């Protein structure tokens, strides 16, 4: 399968992997490639909501001379496996699998590009990987895995509130179930205890590498970086990491009610990448 109806070619294929296959899309650079970019998608429904923006950015990167590889992690999208069986380490291996494919099939520097929880997965991979990466492009990175999990568990509380039902559970009670080894059904996804607890332990500041320059992009209504992300960036810089913070005006396309685009983010990301290579 190739082509997307808009003229830019791409190849969709399955990579053999543990427990089946991973669905991948490779967008080749137009012209001689300057390098490659590996996309790490966000968590659960955010992946679907962000699909269009990821495709648009991938095309923009191609137009600037970069190959882009997208991989659906185990239990996500069109890859094998059930979401409820997904584990953080297995996802880490999937990122390694995709990076290995890029190393075999392309030349030049490789950048990691991650959205939300995908940003933390990209960082965690980088920490463990034997190979080197030229740079990191992080879109709205999750700052704290524990806070992210709380927000995810809240989907249950919010639907209780809206239905007028007495909130039957608190997030602490939901957490206790996870700690006890039970999985939870939330917003249509089965969340395993193992995956939830692994995510809880993650922190952006703790994962930020010292030797790979990172560009963090934040998207919000005001187009200004938030105090929370600024604090995380300052902590990383104080620890010796090279972090540049960018903020653009836009809607949270990874969680928005209606599908939306943020062209300013695509332009800012593409321009930043071009500058870091200049």
């Amino acid at each position, binding site marked *: 399968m190739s082509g997307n109806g808009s003229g830019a070619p791409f190849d969709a294929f399955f990579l053999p992997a543990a427990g089946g296959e991973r669905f991948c899309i490779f967008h080749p650079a137009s012209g001689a490639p300057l390098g490659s970019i590996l996309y790490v998608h966000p968590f659960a*429904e955010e992946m679907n909501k962000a699909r269009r923006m990821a495709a648009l950015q991938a095309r923009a990167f191609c137009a600037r001379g970069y190959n882009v590889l997208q991989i659906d992690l185990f239990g996500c999208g069109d890859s094998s496996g059930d979401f409820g069986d997904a584990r953080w380490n297995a996802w880490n291996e999937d990122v390694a699998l995709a990076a290995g494919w890029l190393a075999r099939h392309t030349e030049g520097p490789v950048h990691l590009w991650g959205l939300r929880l995908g940003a933390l997965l990209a960082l965690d991979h980088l920490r463990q990987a034997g190979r080197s990466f030229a740079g990191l492009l992080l879109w709205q990175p999750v700052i704290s895995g524990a*806070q992210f999990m*709380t*927000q995810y568990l*809240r*989907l249950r*509380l*919010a*639907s209780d*509130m*809206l239905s*007028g039902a007495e*909130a039957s559970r*608190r*997030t*602490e009670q939901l957490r206790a179930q996870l700690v006890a080894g039970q999985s939870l059904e939330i*917003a249509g996804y089965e969340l395993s205890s193992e995956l939830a607890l692994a995510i809880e332990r993650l922190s952006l500041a703790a994962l930020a590498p010292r030797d790979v320059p990172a560009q963090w992009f934040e998207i*919000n*209504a*005001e187009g200004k970086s*938030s*105090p*929370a*992300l600024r*604090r995380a960036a300052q902590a990383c810089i104080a620890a010796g990491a090279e972090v540049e913070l960018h903020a653009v005006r836009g*809607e*949270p396309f990874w*969680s*928005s*009610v*209606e599908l*939306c685009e943020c062209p300013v983010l695509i332009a800012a990301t593409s321009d930043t990448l071009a500058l870091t290579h200049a």
Partner: protein
Amino acid sequence: MIDQVRTIVDSALQLRGRLGASDGATPLLGAIPELDSMAVVSLITALEEHFGFTVADDEIEAATFATLGSLTDFVQHKLDA
């Protein structure tokens, strides 16, 4: 403060300015069809990320989200805490 909260509500729920020059009495919960569970969580997240505070589970209650004014009071209360 109410202007900041209005901007965040507008962005999180993609109202595209539908709140207009709304004041504190403008109803939210039950008046805005976009306010479903994912939208409520997005809104809470946007407030947390913008202001840097953490919302407790028992604060996710209908009274907080009743009007633009009640939500603004809640934000002010969190910032003063």
